[in-house]
């Protein structure tokens, strides 16, 4: 069954705050093998004008993917997660994520379509501090292979 387009525009409740720690940033930077001192050394980060260590460019995926589970796992939507592949990803920053941030994500279904028998769903996660300062918006497109087949002629 193709996904129901009535979900387009649906926004889910804000996530519980994710507290960004220096050691989590270091772990993520180590995992991607990125030695940039701005991720590890508060003094080096301050020299660049940041109040504390900052997180790598793709780090917000840790927050946005967890938040997007509300959509992906929504039984009413009925996405077959076992067939889902990540089709594209975009980040737009107001500022970098940094240690000490308490981040809240609000996810929205931006679009749903069927293409060549695949369900394609585009989600947006607006990530802000607990105080409402916008930090980054993450757009993710997920494709569920073959799940829209019944909708195709």
């Amino acid at each position, binding site marked *: 069954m193709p996904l129901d387009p009535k979900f387009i525009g649906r926004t889910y409740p804000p996530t519980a705050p994710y507290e960004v720690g220096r050691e989590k940033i270091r*772990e*993520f930077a*180590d*995992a*991607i*093998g*990125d030695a*940039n001192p*701005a*991720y590890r050394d508060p003094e080096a980060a301050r*020299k*660049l*004008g*940041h109040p504390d260590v*900052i997180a*790598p*460019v*793709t780090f917000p*995926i*840790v927050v946005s*993917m*967890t938040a997007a589970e509300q959509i992906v796992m929504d039984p009413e939507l009925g996405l077959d997660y076992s067939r889902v*592949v*990540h*089709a*594209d*990803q*975009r*980040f*737009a*920053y107001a*500022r*970098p994520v940094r240690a000490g941030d308490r981040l809240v994500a609000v996810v929205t279904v931006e679009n749903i379509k069927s293409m060549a028998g695949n369900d394609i769903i585009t989600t947006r996660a607006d990530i802000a501090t607990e105080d409402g300062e916008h930090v980054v918006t993450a*757009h993710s497109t997920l494709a569920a292979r073959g799940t829209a087949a019944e909708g195709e002629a």
Partner: protein
Amino acid sequence: MAASISYDDVEVGTELPAQTFPVKRENLVRYAGASGDFNPIHWNQRFATEVGLPDVIAHGMYTMAEAVRVVTDWVEDPAAVVEYSVKFTRPVVVPDPEGAVVEVTGKVAQKLDDRRVRVDLTVTSDAGKVLGVPRAVVQLA
């Protein structure tokens, strides 16, 4: 924010220093742990082949993270990246023990307002291009 590259010193066509990133199974296991993405297609060969893949494949987000290092190493301050987007067009297959190699080049494709530039990347492995239209908008000094 303090990019080490001045807008005045780049032109359309300016090339960023290219980099090559080896990808082994260990990298994927570490990335799974750090990111929380434990999909077994990224670490379990039996599972990967059962679902029709040639072998374990890298997380798309891992490849995305590697590719942007060509930009962040160029400007030094990662906060200079104000937008970054990719399409995941082809998986990076990571056999054990030899692994894979991802090659990344980048060049300035457009000079924008407010001392920003658009950098277009080219990201390839053995199979060819693995990311579609990978590009970043970068705030220069």
